[in-house]
């Protein structure tokens, strides 16, 4: 945190200076008011008009400084918040796949939002509290100088105010959390009942959901009442404690006036001071209560920031040979997603010539997709080497490797952008011609042109809803546009309607010209696109050959295909000439 504040020292100092000025002006107001009362009461001194003018002058200073101090404090806190969030996000963008596999988006969002807000709150309160603390110190000194006894009676109860504010803030936190938990459970029931309404109503189980909701609503009620109970102590207390001070002043001060030791003005000034201290003390209490939370939040942010990207550039990256054919070489590759777990790949040896198209076939969990993920270095191998055109991927420049390898995943992610921007992802400057070319090769040009706004149609999470097959075709176009030397299609046509697939198949043939292609598929027709088929089992290559060869000679291959072959007869939709998939 210190690191985040340092570049903004100017504002911290300005804030503190303004705070000092504000304190001085503020503390003088009751003193002036007291003097004025004494003057009214006939104790002489300067004229009343003089005191009124001085008072107004103090008011002007107080106003100027309070504006400055707030501005400086908030500006500093917001700057720290913004910079910290930027650092966190820039770091997240660089972190390796394995990190993102483990982390939940919601958690990371909370780090970037609520956790950073917690830190911001404390950064904000610190300068404000420094000024408040100064005010308190000044008030104590002034009152003690006037009358130590009066100071004791006026301020004696006030530390309790700060203590109870701290306690309240600390106690409230777990109650607030419990309240949020209850609300989350409650909205969980609401959400599943509405999302799953077909099931609920289909089986007539509304009563069950209603009963569950009643339980959760009751819990919300109980927790809210618990919070109210706490508030019902604290809120009246912050009225009571200052009132104790005022009562003390009236009693002690009154007797002192009767014996001639003090004047009425002193009583008024003391009253004024007590009222003035209510807010600073509450704020100090709140700050003290918040610090543990902010520390915890800062800790969570810190944990992310100290996670080193596991996949990093080599110190002296070796360039991939220019215009290399895209030869892929797996040498004794071993890899597991977790160190402790059984490796997914174990002793994988495979050479794919430049320009060759190879289909990886294997049962579920045979490691096909893992092979695909190791090539662009989403993960590093545990043992062995993967080479592209002879260069160990770990020795090459990371960005160069990733630009050389184009991968299309089964679950395609599209950004909330236009279709054109999604396809031109690798090269946002690409002219529309080129985007259309890529779309054509992916068999996507036709349906994209039919979309409401054609290539400018907004898609993705908050955009136009596309079918799975359409999304996959856009993803293929996205990879094609990047013009990689190695293209990997990881089940990339699985959601495409088989009746449409032949359209892509022809185009894919063209795409595959002149690049190395790795295809992972279940459908025999897609597998047939490859020059060669490699059967994986238990994390290594079992057999390799053409589709027909293996079909004839290899029982294991036939078994895998048979298991994968589901009767996908979505052909009925062909009755409909216009439907997408």
């Amino acid at each position, binding site marked *: 945190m210190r690191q985040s504040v340092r570049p903004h020292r100017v504002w911290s100092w300005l804030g503190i200076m303004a705070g000092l000025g504000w304190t001085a002006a503020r503390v003088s107001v009751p003193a002036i008011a007291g003097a004025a009362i004494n003057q009214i009461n006939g104790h002489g001194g300067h004229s009343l008009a003089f005191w009124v003018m001085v008072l107004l002058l103090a008011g002007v200073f107080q106003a100027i400084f309070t504006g400055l101090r*707030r501005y400086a404090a908030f500006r500093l806190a917001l700057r720290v918040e913004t910079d910290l969030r930027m650092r966190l996000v820039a770091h997240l963008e660089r972190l390796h*796949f394995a990190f993102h596999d483990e982390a939940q988006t919601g958690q990371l969002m909370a780090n970037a939002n609520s956790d950073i807000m917690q830190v911001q709150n404390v950064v904000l309160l610190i300068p404000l509290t420094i000024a408040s603390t100064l005010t308190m110190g000044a008030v104590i000194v002034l009152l003690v100088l006037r009358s130590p006894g009066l100071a004791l009676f006026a301020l004696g109860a006030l530390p309790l105010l700060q203590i109870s504010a701290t306690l309240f803030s600390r106690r409230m936190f777990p109650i607030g959390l419990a309240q949020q938990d209850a609300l989350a459970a409650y909205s969980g029931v609401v959400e599943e009942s509405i999302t799953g309404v077909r099931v609920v109503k289909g089986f007539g189980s509304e009563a069950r959901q209603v009963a569950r909701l009643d339980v959760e609503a009751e819990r919300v009620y109980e927790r809210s009442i618990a919070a109210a109970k706490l508030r019902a102590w604290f809120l009246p207390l912050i009225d009571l404690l200052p*009132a104790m001070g*005022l009562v003390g002043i009236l009693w002690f001060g009154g007797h002192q006036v009767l014996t001639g030791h003090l004047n009425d003005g002193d009583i008024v000034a003391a009253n004024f001071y007590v009222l003035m201290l209510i807010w600073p003390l509450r704020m100090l209490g709140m700050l003290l209560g918040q610090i543990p939370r902010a520390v915890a939040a800062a800790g969570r942010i810190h944990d992310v920031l100290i996670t080193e990207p596991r996949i990093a550039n080599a110190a002296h990256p070796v360039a991939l040979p220019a215009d290399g054919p895209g030869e892929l070489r797996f040498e004794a590759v071993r890899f597991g997603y977790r160190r402790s777990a059984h490796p997914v790949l174990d002793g994988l040896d495979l050479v794919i010539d430049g320009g060759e198209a190879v289909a990886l076939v294997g049962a579920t969990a045979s490691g096909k997709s893992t092979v695909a993920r190791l090539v662009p270095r989403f993960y590093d191998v545990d043992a062995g080497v993967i080479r592209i055109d002879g260069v160990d991927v770990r020795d090459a420049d990371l960005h160069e490797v*990733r630009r050389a390898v184009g991968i299309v995943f089964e679950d395609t992610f599209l950004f909330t952008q236009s279709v054109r921007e999604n396809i031109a992802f690798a090269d946002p400057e690409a002219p529309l011609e080129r985007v259309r070319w890529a779309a054509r090769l992916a068999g996507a040009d036709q349906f994209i042109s039919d979309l409401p706004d054609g290539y400018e149609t907004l898609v993705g999470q908050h955009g136009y809803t596309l079918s799975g097959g359409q999304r996959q075709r856009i993803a293929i176009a996205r990879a094609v546009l990047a013009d990689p030397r190695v293209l990997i299609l990881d089940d990339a046509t699985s959601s495409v309607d088989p009746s449409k697939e032949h359209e892509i198949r022809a185009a894919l043939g063209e795409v595959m010209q002149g690049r190395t292609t790795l295809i992972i598929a279940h459908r025999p027709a897609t597998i047939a696109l490859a020059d060669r088929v490699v059967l994986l089992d238990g994390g290594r290559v079992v057999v390799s050959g053409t589709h027909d060869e293996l079909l004839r000679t290899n029982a294991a291959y036939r078994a895998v295909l048979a298991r994968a072959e589901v009767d996908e007869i979505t052909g*009925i939709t062909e009755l409909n000439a216009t439907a997408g998939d």
Partner: protein
Amino acid sequence: MRGQGHWSELLPEETLSRDEAQRVLRRLWRMLKPYYRSIFVATVLVVLQAAALLGGPALVGYAINNGLPHKHFKGDVGVLDRSVVAYLVLAFAGFVLGRLVTMRIARIGEDYLRMLRATLFRHLMGLSMGFFEREQTGRLVSRMTSDIDALQELISQGLVLMVQNVLLFVGAVIVIFVLSWQLALGVIVIVPPVYFASRWFRRVSNEAYLAVRDRIAVNMSTLQESLEGIRVVQAFAREGEYTQKFHGTNEDQYQANLRTVKISARYFPAVEFTGVLGTAVILGFGGFLVHRNLILIGTVAAFVLYLNNLFEPIQQLSQFYNVVQSAGAALQKVFNLLDTHASVVERPGAFDLPSGSLGIDVDHVSFSYTTDGETVLHDVNLSIAPGERVALVGPTGAGKSTLAKLMARFYDPVEGTVRVGGCDLRDVMLSSLHRRLCVVPQEGYLFAGSLRENVRIGRVTATDADIERALHALGLYERFAAFPEGIDTEVREGGSRLSAGERQLVSLARAALADPDILVLDEATSNLDPGTEHAVERALETLMVGRTVVVVAHRLSTAARADRIAVIDDGGLAELGTHDELVHAGGRYAALYESWVTRR
């Protein structure tokens, strides 16, 4: 699931017109009827508390005037001590009353919210399927969550303080006029500037905060998307650009925040200065009145103390305005939902379906989703015999799913009748229909809880033995018993996530448990994982035995296995017959079948 898309759903705050606000308030007041007594007690308590709080400064003034010496008065220690004791009593009374008020109002408010949550949910669950097909899930969820939360905020934070502040302000004004109307007139001049400044601040800062909220939403959804798409971003080596993009939205958020700071950096100095100005007026004018012997010095002192009670309420109330506004808007949305009525209702005197096997008759049925909308089905006739299995096939949008929905009475036909077991569905008790007819949706939806509890949804009253029997009947028991904690495994927690195929198996098990006479199946369009494909098919076959089945088929193989096939096209029945009949007839179905066979 919550939070998905949540950031971008934040829209500009709707504001209520005066008329709407009044209507919402009147309705709220009517709904609060059970709490009238409690509200009355709370009101009395809150008035007493305000009186206790306001009594203090008056006592100080009284003590100074009548207990302490001035000009020709020596002072009276008795008056002083009595005032001190009275103040002490008032302070403690204020504390006790404050506790009582806070608790009383919290109980009323929270109880009302609990009632509102339960009522709204019951209402929602009672609405027809058609309603849910039209409405977006997210919007309905936010009616039940964020809209009610807005009210909760008002109740837990705002309401007590709001009422107190109003009373304190009004009380303070009354008290100062009683103490000295001349000085009160002098002081009251500072109220309008504070009021107008606060109003300005509320308006401007409200706009600024909405902008901040908007910027946060944009910034967070940028982040959310780049995190969810991180694999694509990294695969295409575009981290730099995305970091840059976030930098832009992040700075926008900062700027929007800074604007709110600039606004408050103008408002707060003005208010603080006005406070000092008020003190100056009291002292200057008050001193003048003291010299004229119109008031005593204690009164001036009391005024200085009351100044606070004039200022704080105005400032605080202007802040509450926003909370109240958004609570009002939220409440209106909740009320609107409560006013939506189920389109499919049970007729008075509705009866149970006859026992025994049930057939379905679709008799001259026409249907459109909206009154003036396109006709989805026109004049469809189809008779399904008890125990028969009929497949509905046809292009997307032809109306086959709609036909199935009419058979399950998700909607009522616009013209014609749907009869089940010879009874017009509109005359049948809904509970009876639900017991006898089950719709098994395409995708098995899972609820939080164990596998067992998920299956139990099929029939809430089923015993554990019933559930196990249903699983055994479909040949699924071993499969699920092999899960880490058997059929008590929590299905939505990480690690034991079910595949699409397994979810569908759960869905079939529910249907087996429900044991209906009619099954309406919507076949999944997407491919299941090869591992569960066969299990799903086997379970389905078992489930269909001895029941009347209507299946919306997406696969020819499914259609081919049905007793009869109905080809629906363009809202009408195009072909009807057995597989062999249709293949021989040489129509669309035949053409389709042919292309399928050759492709294989």
